[in-house]
C-alpha cells in the first residue's frame, strides 16, 4: 500500500509540467566559484548539484510509461529526478512561477466555475453509480450523459478542453466499438451466405452424383443408353463449374469475414491504447477528476472485461502501477492513483488551514506548494481564500529572496531575510541556513586575513589570490573594501614610505608613533616593517618608563624630582634615542624646575670643573649631595674632582 502511495507521489511529476529545457538545481556558477546550493537537504548539507554530467549517466533510468519517462520525486529532499537532472520542486523555476501565479490569482468562485464543478461532480456521481450497475450497456443513458457533460464542461475556459479531449476519446472508442459491432454483424451475414453457398454446392454435387448413377445404369441396358450418355456428360460439366463458382464465392466471403475480424481486433487494441494514453495524459496533467471519470467508464466502453494496461512486464512502470504485488497493472490502478491524489490534495489544503491558524507559515507554504503542484485544478486548491494566499505569498517572497541572495552569495542579506522569516514564523528552522552562511562568511574572512598576511610580507601575488578567493566565497564581504583600501594604500605607499624614512632618519619617533595608522602601510615592506616595529616598541617603552618615573617621583615632593631628574639624565646619557625624545626631554625639564637647587648645584659643579675651578666644583657637588644624598651624579663628581685635587701639587 505504501508503494502505491509513493507511486502517487512519483506521479506528481506531472505537477511540475517540467521539460528538458528546465535548469537543474545547483548548477555551478560561472567564474569557477564553488557551487551554491538552491536548497538544503534533510541532513543539513547543501543539495548537491546533479545534472547531465557523465557521472550520472550510468544511473538507472527512470521508469517509462507508454514511452514517457516518469520523473521520480524524492520526498526527503523535495527534489524530482527527471531526464538526467535533479530538480528542486520548491526552487524550480517552473514550479516557482506557477506557484507565484497561483498565489496572485483571485480564488475561482465565478458562476461559470461553480457550474463547471457542479458538472464534474455530477459526472463523478453518475459514473460511481454506473460502476455499481453491472447491467449497464454501451450507449447507455449514463454514458451519453457523461459524454454530453464532458462536452459541456469543455466550454469552461479553466478546463483547458481536457473534458472535450476525454469526451472525444470516449466517442472515438465508442465509434470503434460500433464499427466492430457492424463488422461482427457483416461477418454473421457473410457466414449465413457462405453456409447457403455451401448448401447449394452440396445440392449440385448430390445432383451430379445421382445423374451419374442413372447414366451408368442405362448404358448397361442398350443403345439408348449411349445416346443419353453423351447428353449426361455435358450436363455434369456444367454442374461442376457451378459448384466451383459457389466454393470460390464462399472462400471470398470467408476471407472478408477474417479481414473484418482482424480489423475489429486491431481497431479495438488501438482504441484501448489511445484511451489508456489519454487517461495517463490526464493523470500527468493532474486532471484527477477526469481520470476518475474516464477510468470508471472504461469497462463500459471496452466490454471485453480486459482492463490491463499495456506495459512491459519488466518495466518499473509495470511495478509501480501494479503496486508491487505481482499482478498486472490495470486501468483501476490509474483510477486508484488519481483518487489518492485527490484525497492527498484535499488533506494538504486542510492541513494548510490548520498551520495558518497556528502561524506555521513555513510548513503551510510547503504544504500549499505540494497541493498546488499536485492538484492545481482541484476545487479545494482553486477556491483557496485570497487572504490566506496573501499571507503565504509574503512568506514565499522572503523565501525566494533568501534563495536569490544565497545564489548571489550575499550572506548578510540571507541572514537578514532569515531573521524576518523567523519573525513571521517562530518555528521556522533557520539553523541550516545560518550555519551555512556563517561558515561561508568565516571562510571569506579567513581568506581576507590570509590576504593581509600576504600583503604584509610584500607578497602581492598571494594577496591577489586570497582576496579573489574571499570575493568568490562572499562577494559582498564588507572586509573586502578594507582589503582593497589596503591594496590602494600599498600602491600609493611610496610617498608615505619616503616620509617615514625621513622621519626615522630624523629620529622623529614620536611623530611616527602619533601617526602610526598613517605609517602602518610601510610595514608591507619587510625592511621598513622592522623599523616601524622598532619605533613603535621604543615609544611604547619610553612612555612606560616616563609613567613609572612620574609615579615614583610623586611619592616624595622634595627628593622625588631630584631622583627623577637624575634617572632621566642617566637614561638620556645611556641611549641616544632617549636623549632625542621630545617627550622625555619635556618631562626632564619639568623635574629640572622642580629640583632646581639640586640641578643648579650639579650644573655649577660641572661648569667649575670645566674651568679648572676644582675647589668650587667640589663644593658644588657637595651641595648637590646635600640636596639629594643618593645622588649618583654628585657622588661621581666628588670622586672625580677629589682625585684631581689630591693628585695635584700646590
Amino acid at each position: 500500500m505504501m508503494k502505491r502511495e509513493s507511486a502517487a507521489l512519483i506521479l506528481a511529476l506531472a505537477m511540475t509540467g517540467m521539460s528538458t529545457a528546465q535548469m537543474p538545481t545547483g548548477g555551478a556558477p560561472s567564474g569557477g566559484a564553488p557551487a551554491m546550493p538552491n536548497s538544503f537537504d534533510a541532513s543539513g548539507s547543501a543539495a548537491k548539484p546533479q545534472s547531465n554530467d557523465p557521472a550520472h549517466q550510468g544511473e538507472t533510468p527512470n521508469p517509462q510509461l507508454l514511452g514517457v519517462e516518469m520523473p521520480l520525486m524524492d520526498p526527503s529532499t523535495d527534489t524530482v529526478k527527471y531526464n538526467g537532472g535533479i530538480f528542486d520542486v520548491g526552487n524550480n523555476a517552473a514550479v516557482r512561477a506557477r506557484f507565484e501565479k497561483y498565489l496572485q490569482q483571485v480564488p475561482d468562485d465565478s458562476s461559470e466555475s461553480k457550474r463547471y464543478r457542479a458538472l464534474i461532480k455530477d459526472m463523478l456521481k453518475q459514473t460511481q453509480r454506473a460502476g455499481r450497475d453491472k447491467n449497464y450497456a454501451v450507449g447507455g443513458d449514463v454514458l451519453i450523459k457523461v459524454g454530453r457533460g464532458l462536452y459541456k464542461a469543455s466550454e469552461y475556459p479553466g478546463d483547458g478542453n481536457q473534458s472535450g479531449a476525454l469526451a472525444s476519446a470516449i466517442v472515438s472508442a465508442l465509434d470503434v466499438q460500433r464499427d466492430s459491432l457492424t463488422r461482427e454483424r457483416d461477418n454473421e451475414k457473410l457466414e449465413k451466405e457462405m453456409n447457403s453457398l455451401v448448401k447449394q454446392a452440396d445440392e449440385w454435387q448430390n445432383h451430379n452424383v445421382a445423374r451419374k448413377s442413372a447414366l451408368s445404369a442405362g448404358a448397361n441396358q442398350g443403345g439408348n443408353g449411349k445416346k443419353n450418355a453423351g447428353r449426361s456428360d455435358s450436363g455434369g460439366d456444367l454442374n461442376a463449374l457451378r459448384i466451383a463458382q459457389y466454393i470460390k464465392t464462399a472462400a471470398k466471403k470467408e476471407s472478408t469475414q477474417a479481414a473484418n475480424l482482424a480489423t475489429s481486433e486491431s481497431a479495438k487494441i488501438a482504441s484501448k491504447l489511445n484511451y489508456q494514453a489519454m487517461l495517463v495524459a490526464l493523470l500527468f496533467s493532474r486532471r484527477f477528476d477526469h481520470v476518475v471519470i474516464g477510468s470508471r467508464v472504461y469497462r463500459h466502453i471496452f466490454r471485453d472485461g480486459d482492463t490491463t494496461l499495456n506495459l512491459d512486464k519488466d518495466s518499473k512502470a509495470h511495478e509501480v502501477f501494479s503496486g508491487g504485488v505481482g499482478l498486472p497493472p490495470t486501468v483501476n490502478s490509474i483510477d486508484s492513483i488519481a483518487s489518492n491524489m485527490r484525497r492527498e490534495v484535499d488533506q494538504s489544503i486542510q492541513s494548510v488551514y490548520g498551520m495558518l491558524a497556528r502561524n506555521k507559515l513555513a510548513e503551510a507554504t510547503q504544504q500549499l506548494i505540494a497541493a498546488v503542484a499536485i492538484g492545481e485544478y482541484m476545487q479545494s486548491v482553486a477556491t483557496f481564500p485570497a487572504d490566506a494566499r496573501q499571507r503565504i505569498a509574503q512568506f514565499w517572497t522572503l523565501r525566494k529572496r533568501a534563495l536569490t541572495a544565497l545564489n548571489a552569495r550575499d550572506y548578510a542579506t540571507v541572514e537578514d531575510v532569515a531573521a524576518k522569516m523567523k519573525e513571521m514564523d517562530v518555528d521556522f528552522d533557520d539553523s541550516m541556513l545560518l550555519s551555512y552562511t556563517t561558515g561561508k562568511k568565516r571562510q571569506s574572512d579567513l581568506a581576507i586575513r590570509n590576504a593581509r598576511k600576504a600583503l604584509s610580507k610584500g607578497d602581492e601575488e598571494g594577496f591577489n589570490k586570497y582576496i579573489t578567493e574571499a570575493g568568490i566565497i562572499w562577494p559582498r564581504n564588507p572586509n573586502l573594501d578594507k582589503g582593497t583600501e589596503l591594496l590602494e594604500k600599498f600602491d600609493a605607499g611610496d610617498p608615505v614610505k619616503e616620509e617615514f624614512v625621513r622621519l626615522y632618519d630624523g629620529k622623529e619617533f614620536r611623530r611616527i608613533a602619533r601617526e602610526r595608522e598613517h605609517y602602518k602601510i610601510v610595514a608591507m615592506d619587510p625592511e621598513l616593517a622592522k623599523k616601524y616595529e622598532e619605533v613603535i616598541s621604543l615609544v611604547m617603552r619610553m612612555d612606560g618608563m616616563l609613567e613609572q618615573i612620574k609615579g615614583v617621583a610623586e611619592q616624595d615632593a622634595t627628593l622625588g624630582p631630584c631622583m627623577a631628574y637624575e634617572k632621566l639624565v642617566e637614561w638620556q646619557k645611556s641611549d641616544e634615542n632617549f636623549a632625542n625624545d621630545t617627550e622625555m626631554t619635556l618631562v626632564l625639564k619639568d623635574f629640572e624646575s622642580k629640583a632646581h637647587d639640586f640641578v643648579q648645584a650639579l650644573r655649577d659643579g660641572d661648569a667649575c670643573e670645566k674651568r679648572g675651578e676644582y675647589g668650587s666644583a667640589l663644593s658644588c657637588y657637595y651641595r648637590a649631595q646635600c640636596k639629594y644624598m643618593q645622588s649618583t651624579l654628585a657622588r661621581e663628581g666628588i670622586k672625580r674632582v677629589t682625585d684631581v685635587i689630591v693628585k695635584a701639587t700646590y
Partner: protein
Amino acid sequence: MARRARKGSKKKGKQNLMPVFIGIGAIVVLALILGSGVLKKGSSARGLEPTPNFRIAEYRQDGSRFASSGNVYVFDGRVENIETVGNARLVSISIPDNPDERLPLLVPGDVKLRVNLTRGDRFIFETTCRTGKTGDGKQVKGVLIVKNVETR
C-alpha cells in the same frame, strides 16, 4: 596757653634726658664688651678666629678669587667626611648655621696636624687658597689647603 605751656615743657624735657642718654651709652659699651666676649667663643685655643665675611656661595662660583697670595682663611666647622687618598686627606666640613653647604679642605700628606681629625667633631681650620697643577700641567684652581687645625 596751652601752646606756651607745651614749649616750656619741651625745654625742660631736654634737660631731663641727659641721664637717659648716659645710661644708654653705658649699656652700649657693656654690650660691646659682652659681644666681643661672645665672638671670642669661636676662636681657637691659640686665638685663631674664623675669617669673617667668607661666603661659601661666592667660593662655589669662583674659588680662584680667594687664591690671592698670603690670604689665610680660618673656618670653624664640623667634619662631615674625610676622604683619604694616599697620604693626603680631603675633609669636608659644614659651617654652623649653614647645613646645606660643605667646604672641601685638602690636608696634604706633608702637613702634620697636632690634632686628630674625627668625623662629627668641630675644629678650627687655618687654610690658604691655592692653585695647583696636575702631572699633565692642568691647573687646579681655588683649593683650600689646611695649614693648621686646632680644637675649639
